[in-house]
């Protein structure tokens, strides 16, 4: 791999031990993928997770004196002060989140604590070279904006933030952004929830190829595209997708396939979506709570829930996880008041896969997100998966049927 003088000096330790560790990892990555050189990145996002490996790695770099050249936005851990008001947080968990916040502050991150930075704080232009981790972020950056990122891990994105570089390979190169498999959607995709199921159904049939969707609506909402990307990267590993007539590198089918023929054509039927829905949901019955915001809800989604619960009473507790900016807007616009009057709440800076939800372990909830249901298996949380309207109806009855 060809390094510039400055990059070689980073590798040799001239910019300190922390930068050296980061560059070493990136050179190793570049060698695996046969990258000829490094390229500068202008934006980064680190999928902070507040888990052991995350804290271990960021503290190791901080202790070695690392500082970010390109300040990354970061994912949420949990909102300690909020959860201390509604439940008991163990000393150990309190210490971990405090250390995580401190370490990311010390390394020079921008402390957004949200998983949808691509909607409001870290928005790239077409063609921009970036390093985004977070499974709903990577496909949004590549597919919806036409900016470029590989499917970075939290750690490799942090290395890119520190060195300001990323190895040139994969989805940074024109030829690898080409569509490979034509996905003919014969199912009736009509709301944001259908994109969750579509995203979950496709990877098994795809086998690591880049999908090009046809026969989808041409005016999907931002939430629909967010859901599609998030689920494609829960059930599988799909850093980029094209939707003909919607995403910028797929104005036409020829454009999406860069003039080549599709390697394969797969069809997704309504039965495929129904089958995947039946597979991933836990059994219906009494529920204890409703949880939304995996990925974080945007303002329109919050408004939708507020409208549905307006003037009504929820039988079980309901939370919506959002960014602090969305929560602030929801407060200004009265959505928070409406939600709280019905018995719900908005919590910012928080992910569902965090120990702050311990009071819900062993219980059953309802959510619109397969991703939420998948990762919380380890925390022994059960989820019935339904579209938002049905979730709210269930939360008002305390039961899903």
């Amino acid at each position: 791999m060809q390094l510039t003088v400055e990059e070689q000096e980073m590798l040799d330790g001239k910019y300190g031990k922390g930068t050296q560790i980061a560059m070493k990892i990136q050179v190793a990555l570049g060698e695996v993928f046969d990258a000829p050189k490094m390229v500068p990145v202008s934006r980064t996002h680190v999928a902070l997770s507040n888990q052991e490996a995350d804290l271990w790695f960021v503290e190791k770099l901080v202790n070695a004196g690392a500082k970010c050249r390109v300040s990354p936005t970061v994912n949420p851990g949990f909102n300690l002060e909020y959860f201390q008001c509604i439940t008991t947080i163990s000393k150990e968990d309190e210490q971990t989140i405090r250390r995580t916040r401190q370490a990311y502050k010390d390394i020079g991150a921008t402390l957004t604590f949200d998983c949808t930075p691509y909607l409001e704080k870290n928005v790239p232009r077409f063609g921009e070279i970036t390093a985004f981790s977070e499974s709903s972020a990577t496909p949004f950056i590549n597919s919806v904006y036409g900016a470029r990122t590989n499917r970075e891990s939290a750690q490799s994105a942090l290395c890119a933030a520190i060195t300001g570089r990323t190895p040139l390979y994969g989805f940074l190169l024109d030829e690898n952004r080409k569509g490979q498999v034509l996905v003919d959607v014969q199912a009736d995709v009509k709301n944001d929830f259908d994109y969750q199921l579509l995203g979950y159904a496709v990877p098994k049939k795809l086998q690591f190829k880049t999908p090009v969707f046809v026969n989808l609506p041409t005016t999907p909402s931002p939430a629909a595209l967010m859901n599609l990307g998030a689920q494609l990267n829960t059930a599988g590993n799909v850093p980029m997708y094209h939707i003909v007539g919607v995403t910028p590198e797929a104005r036409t089918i020829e454009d999406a396939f860069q003039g080549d023929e599709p390697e394969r054509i797969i069809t997704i039927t309504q039965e495929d979506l129904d089958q995947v829905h039946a597979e991933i949901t836990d059994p219906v019955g009494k529920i204890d709570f409703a949880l939304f915001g995996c990925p974080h809800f945007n303002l329109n989604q919050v408004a939708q829930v507020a409208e549905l619960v307006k003037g009504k009473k929820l039988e079980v507790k309901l939370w919506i996880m959002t960014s602090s900016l969305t929560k602030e807007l929801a407060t200004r616009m009265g959505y928070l008041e409406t939600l709280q009057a019905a018995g719900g709440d908005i919590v910012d800076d928080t992910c569902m896969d965090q120990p702050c939800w311990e009071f819900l372990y062993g219980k059953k909830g309802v959510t619109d997100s397969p991703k939420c249901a998948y990762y919380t298996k380890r925390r022994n949380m059960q989820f019935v998966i339904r579209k938002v309207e049905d979730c709210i109806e269930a939360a008002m009855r305390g039961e899903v049927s």
Partner: protein
Amino acid sequence: MSETYACHKVSEGVIEGDVLISTDDFCFYLVDPKTGVVIEKNHCLEGQSIADKILVFPSGKGSSVVQADGMYQLKMTGKGPKALIIKYPDTVLVASSIIMEMPVVDRVPNSFYEQVKNGDKLRVDADQGTLTILS
């Protein structure tokens, strides 16, 4: 009698162990770190332990944080696999493996996949780029 195959280093290391094959993609977060047992619903290895195995699987899957977290916890409890043999390297799995010092190889010939069975004793030499089925 042993047979040797060429491969390509993803993450360094030399190790011997027993083979366990997964036909499904793999997410290390959905393994119980206390036992090494796969807890993912409907996964082909659900209920089996990956502890001390040389795990052969197509590709990593799952979010950009959980592979490293899952691997780290398994490393701490000593219930993780000894090495990985993969078909489709992705950035998340590769970066996690390098950081967690897990030996990993890819670009293995089809003849290896035709020959290898669960329980085979295998030597993985990522540094030299060789795989040897020992018995």
